């Protein structure tokens, strides 16, 4: 007569379902379906989705593309290490290189304009975490991940690494400027 003993009824599958359980199962099932359909709904009507556009590539090919953008659109350099600040035209492809333990280059974007931002790592896994917006994307080596991003408000944003990548993980931080 309890959960630690075999069920007393030979055929327990035909036991009537108690009203409490039946009601709860019906309510819970409806809620589960609502949660399920929220995801496709947001793909159609929401604005924050990943297109999952990605390409297999190599660090060399990816760095070459990043270098081309830096050569064309660098507006200034920052810090003693002369990290380029890139101000690309709206709609263009921008490449962000993640490696142990830095982001390269620094991006300068315009509010309300869209950009195709590419993310890829040169070595281990990294995490693209845009603060204080709190947008977080996994960055893989060997996979060029394309996000179409539209910054909303001007300001200085931080990019920090939030996938553990070794001893200097906490030093891997950069900026994105939005004008």
């Amino acid at each position, binding site marked *: 007569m309890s959960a630690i003993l075999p069920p007393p009824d030979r055929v327990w*599958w035909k036991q*009537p*379902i108690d009203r409490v359980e039946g009601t709860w199962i019906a309510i819970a099932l409806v809620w589960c379906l609502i949660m399920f359909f929220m995801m496709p709904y947001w793909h159609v009507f929401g604005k924050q989705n990943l297109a999952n556009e990605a*390409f297999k590539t190599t660090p060399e090919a990816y760095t070459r593309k990043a270098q081309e953008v830096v050569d064309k659109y660098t507006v200034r350099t920052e810090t003693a290490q002369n990290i380029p600040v890139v101000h690309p035209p709206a709609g263009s492809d921008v490449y962000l290189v993640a490696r142990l333990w830095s982001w390269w280059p620094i991006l300068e974007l315009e509010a309300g304009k869209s950009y195709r931002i590419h993310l890829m790592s040169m070595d281990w896994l990294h995490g693209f975490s845009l603060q204080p917006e709190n947008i977080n994307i996994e960055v893989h080596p060997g996979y060029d991940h394309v996000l179409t991003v539209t910054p909303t408000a001007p300001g200085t944003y931080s990019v920090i690494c939030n996938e553990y990548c070794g001893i200097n993980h906490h030093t891997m931080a950069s900026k994105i400027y939005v004008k």
Partner: protein
Amino acid sequence: MAEPTQNVNFEEVLEEPIPAMQQLLDNPFLLLFIGIATPAVLYIIWGVMEIVNIPVAK
């Protein structure tokens, strides 16, 4: 879900065949097969196929 059966008398109960769902739930090895095949197909195989099919950058 099957209709609840009530007020069945004793002899009928003992002779009543075990419902298919109960037989499934009483068969650990069939459950083991289900529990491995379902995620292996829906999660691992489907996922790996998608990764393999990611296009190469131009």
